[in-house]
């Protein structure tokens, strides 16, 4: 992993990936010793097969695969940028994660963070992230594809390449509603039989949509809309710029 070469500051591994994947590669980034590549959905299968089969890449294991919902990425609930004569804003603005009920929408009044370095909000909502491992070269790689359609996100299934994708894809389908084309058995896996909705989407309320109780008259368990809890989050979501960490690392260097 420390095979850094001089040309454009990229490691030999990154250059190898660029050479092998060529046009299939949308972006490649290296940070903290981790390599992330992004491919288009139409190249998802071909790129995966190449990563597994190429003798110099040889990612024989799919360690993890998960969905990510980028809705509200970089939004916060507490304005820390505009100072007025009375100080910072005091209230929580918007209805972010955990602060709304079933049927209500996620809203953000602050909009995207406008810190010193603005966080680029991804253009597409759903992404699938896979973590690959090569035992032969002792290397990890993060592979990402963003689903083209925000309403009906879908991606080809990797089950044919790595069998371990089976349950991971079922989980991503269950929690995010991402359909994997070609999956032999795309059922829900973690949620209840007959569950409605995709609970890990950012616009799914934290308190859930239904609750269960035993009905003594009907003599069975019944499902009802949630009434027993109110949406409530104690600590507002706050984004601050990172000068604090620059200061902290400077202090550490000064031996403080």
């Amino acid at each position, binding site marked *: 992993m420390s095979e850094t070469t001089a040309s454009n500051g990229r490691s030999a591994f990154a250059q190898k990936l660029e050479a092998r994947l060529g046009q299939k590669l949308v972006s490649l980034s290296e940070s903290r010793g*981790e390599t992330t590549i992004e491919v288009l959905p139409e190249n998802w299968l071909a790129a995966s097969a190449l990563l597994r089969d190429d003798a110099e890449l040889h990612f024989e294991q799919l360690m993890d695969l998960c969905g*990510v919902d980028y809705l509200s990425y970089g939004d916060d609930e507490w304005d820390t940028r505009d100072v007025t004569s009375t100080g910072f804003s005091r209230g929580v603005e918007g209805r972010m994660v955990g602060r709304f009920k079933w049927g209500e929408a996620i809203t953000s009044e602050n909009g995207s963070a406008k810190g010193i370095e603005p966080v680029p909000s991804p253009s597409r909502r759903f992404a699938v992230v896979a973590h690959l491992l090569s035992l032969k070269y002792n290397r990890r790689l993060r592979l990402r594809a963003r689903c083209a359609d925000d309403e009906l996100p879908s991606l080809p299934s990797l089950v044919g390449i790595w069998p371990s994708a089976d349950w991971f894809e079922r989980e991503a389908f269950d929690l995010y509603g991402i359909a994997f084309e070609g999956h032999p058995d795309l059922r829900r*896996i*973690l949620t209840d039989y007959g569950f409605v909705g995709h609970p890990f989407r950012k616009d799914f309320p934290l308190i859930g949509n239904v609750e269960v109780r035993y009905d003594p008259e009907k003599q069975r368990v019944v499902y009802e809309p949630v009434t027993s809890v109110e949406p409530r989050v104690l600590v507002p979501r706050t984004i*601050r710029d990172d000068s604090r960490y620059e200061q902290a690392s400077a202090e550490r260097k000064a031996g403080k």
Partner: protein
Amino acid sequence: MQEIKNYTMNFGPQHPAAHGVLRLVLEMDGETIMRADPHIGLLHRATEKLAESKPFNQSIGYMDRLDYVSMMCNEHAYVRAIENLLGVEAPERAQWIRTMFDEITRILNHLMWLGSNALDLGAMAVFLYAFREREELMDCYEAVSGARMHATYYRPGGVYRDLPEQMPKYGESKWHKGKDLERLNEWRGGSMLDFLDAFTADFPRRVDEYETLLTDNRIWKQRTVDIGVVPPEQALAWGMSGPMLRGSGVEWDLRKKQPYAKYAEVDFDIPVGVKGDCYDRYLVRIEEMRQSNRIIKQCADWLRKNPGPVMVRNYKVAPPSRVEMKDDMEALIHHFKLFTEGYTVPAGETYAAVEAPKGEFGIYLVSDGANKPFRLKCRAPSFVHLSSMDSIVRGHMLADVVAMIGTYDVVFGEVDR
């Protein structure tokens, strides 16, 4: 002639051999499994979603509750992911403490696995012996964190506090008095490191005891040898890790290959199996306990010689001491901000994996610069292992399914998350 059809059998979720809440729908031809369909999610708590609504530090306790027999290893992965993004490194002593407790956790987990797997296959006594030693190690958990299981001991930037100078003793009670009490307190005269010294000196003998019960036991071998054979190619294809992979003869251990904490500085061996059957995995886990014991001894020696801080003195991440807080305004502000808002983590993403007792436990963390995670994904080894159930048990007998569930070492806290 009578027509014979396959029939479907429901196994669990409330079955003692289901190791929690596994529901298996088995399609059977007589006693032979034609298809196994595990239904999971009965313990689903949406840990990853809950973590999105809380400041980073408040989710450490959730990690304990994922794989609830290897608590601190889960914390370690989570804490390491946060440290990666923050660019913070724990002090050396904290790293040694983490290494030591990871190995204590490994022994705790393997003892639990050994006891319950033997119980599944009809050997009652091993369970009782295994829990005797678990008790000692859980006392270490308690001494250091105040909780016997859900410790919340590792923090970003170090560990919550240093090891105690005095190992807690048993008090006199109706059940423990006189000679019995003396025996219980025999190792507890000094510090926790003294206690661990006594434990590590004694433990190999205890492992021998378990082995006399099982290793050459005819019934045990009949139930495990050549059962649930996982060829190395299959193990790799199904994303297996930990003892499941090593049992099949693949020498892969993150502690050696991608060392974290202080694993690069301790001396230990990686046992691997030959055939990849349940018996090989049993032998691998037994040997891992012996190796963990070696590592604990080395950590205890180092920790005794090298006092030092166990938490970074970066008050943006770690709280200041109570004393400082009482007479320093700045420290008071730091304390207040840390316990109300928490700290914000620079935008980015990371994957941090540790060699948990069951395999690779990984945390994929996405931060958008807020004081809460944007996305947290726990890569649980049990989940991945269980997904290969159908492909492995086809053609086996019903009783072998129980042996297979046992050898997977599944814990539903992390399968269902």
